[in-house]
């Protein structure tokens, strides 16, 4: 394990105690059965929610999300038909919409928010949970990778983008006929898969499992 900096001794009965990550309430570590959800009595934040086969499901969902992402990038995304002209636009075109001129930096931001950061999160999850699903020890540096995955969570904005597409469709609906390409549906599926995956995952549970597997 990584122990470069001296870590302070854990509290004497650290295994029986738990501090709510949100409000710091000191709790007796709840014995949460599979399928149950433990919430903090003070701030009502979900602390632990173990689910049957959660690990395998998260891996499967992350894997499908990766495949869907590839599909979403390479198939046509939206198609606009007006005045006898057809304009096809892919996800990549949308990302590149800001390129050229003063809005150039937004190209990088768009690519990061819609494609790169979600992909890093999926890959990171596979790296952290993959070996454990096979009953192996966690991969090296699994802890910092999982911390990165959690840190990136607010910045992966695939679902925000889908709603953005809906708003854009309403705006041009009067101007032209628009059809949705296969990539759009791939992307919608990706969002659904991501939401499902985040529901299966509870941070404290993953950390506990990582820790237990590392010691065994």
């Amino acid at each position, binding site marked *: 394990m990584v*122990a470069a900096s001296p*870590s302070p001794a854990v509290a004497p009965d650290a295994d029986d105690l738990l501090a709510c990550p949100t409000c710091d309430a*000191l709790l007796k570590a709840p014995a949460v059965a599979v399928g149950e959800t433990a919430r903090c009595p003070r701030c009502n934040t979900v602390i632990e929610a173990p689910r049957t086969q959660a690990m395998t499901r998260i891996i499967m969902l992350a894997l499908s999300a990766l495949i869907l992402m590839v599909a979403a990038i390479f198939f046509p995304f939206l198609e606009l038909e007006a005045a006898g002209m057809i304009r096809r636009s892919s996800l990549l075109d949308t990302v*590149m919409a800001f390129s050229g001129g003063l809005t150039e930096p937004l190209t990088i931001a768009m690519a990061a928010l819609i494609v790169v950061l979600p992909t890093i999160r999926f890959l990171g999850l596979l790296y952290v949970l993959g070996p454990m699903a096979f009953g192996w020890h966690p991969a090296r540096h699994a802890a910092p990778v999982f911390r990165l995955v959690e840190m990136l969570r607010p910045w992966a904005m695939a679902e925000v983008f889908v709603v953005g597409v809906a708003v854009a469709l309403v705006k041009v609906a009067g*101007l032209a006929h628009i059809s949705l390409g296969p990539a759009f549906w791939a992307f919608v599926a990706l969002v659904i898969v991501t939401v499902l995956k985040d529901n299966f995952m509870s941070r*404290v549970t993953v950390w506990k499992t990582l820790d237990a597997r590392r010691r065994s």
Partner: protein
Amino acid sequence: MTAHQAGLIGCTQCGRVHRPGPGRCDRCGAPLVPRDTASLQRVWAWLIAGLVVYVPANLYPMLRTTQLGREYDNTIFGGVIELMHHGDIGVALIVFGASLVIPVSKFIAIAYLALSISRRVRLSAHRRHLLFEVVEFIGRWSMIDVFVVAILSSLVQLDFAATIRPGIAAVSFALSVAFTMLAALSFDPRLIWEDAD
């Protein structure tokens, strides 16, 4: 009772309880701090940065439409007015809410939250927590505007008939959203619950 009151430090990542002392969590490696006292300063800094870039986001055009050879500049507010003239009251209200009401109320909410943590205004811990959750949830959804601009300008490229290009305001709007997200993320949520019971 909180871990802090018990003389211990709880990890904000994984909840493991530690004896006080500098260092990192032995389970997940996150840095351990009893209370992040500098967090409010960071909140104010990001919030002010977000406010500053929000001004040009409203003054400069978000979209540049070329229709039959004529060029129109659309600011955020101008877009709302135009939608109203077209009779799309519903869409106009949505855009008005998403690009004006939500960002402004987010600024106010973050400032109010920061003030209530430093005891300038009174607000119960539960209310504070609720406000914090709402601000944290809504933050990323403001990026919708930027995405809409990107989709429109990649799609509406019909040569002479109509072309849409992004305006410079999109950059400052995106920055404003990112800065307010950073402001919300800078809160140490444990401060929200300080002295709650």
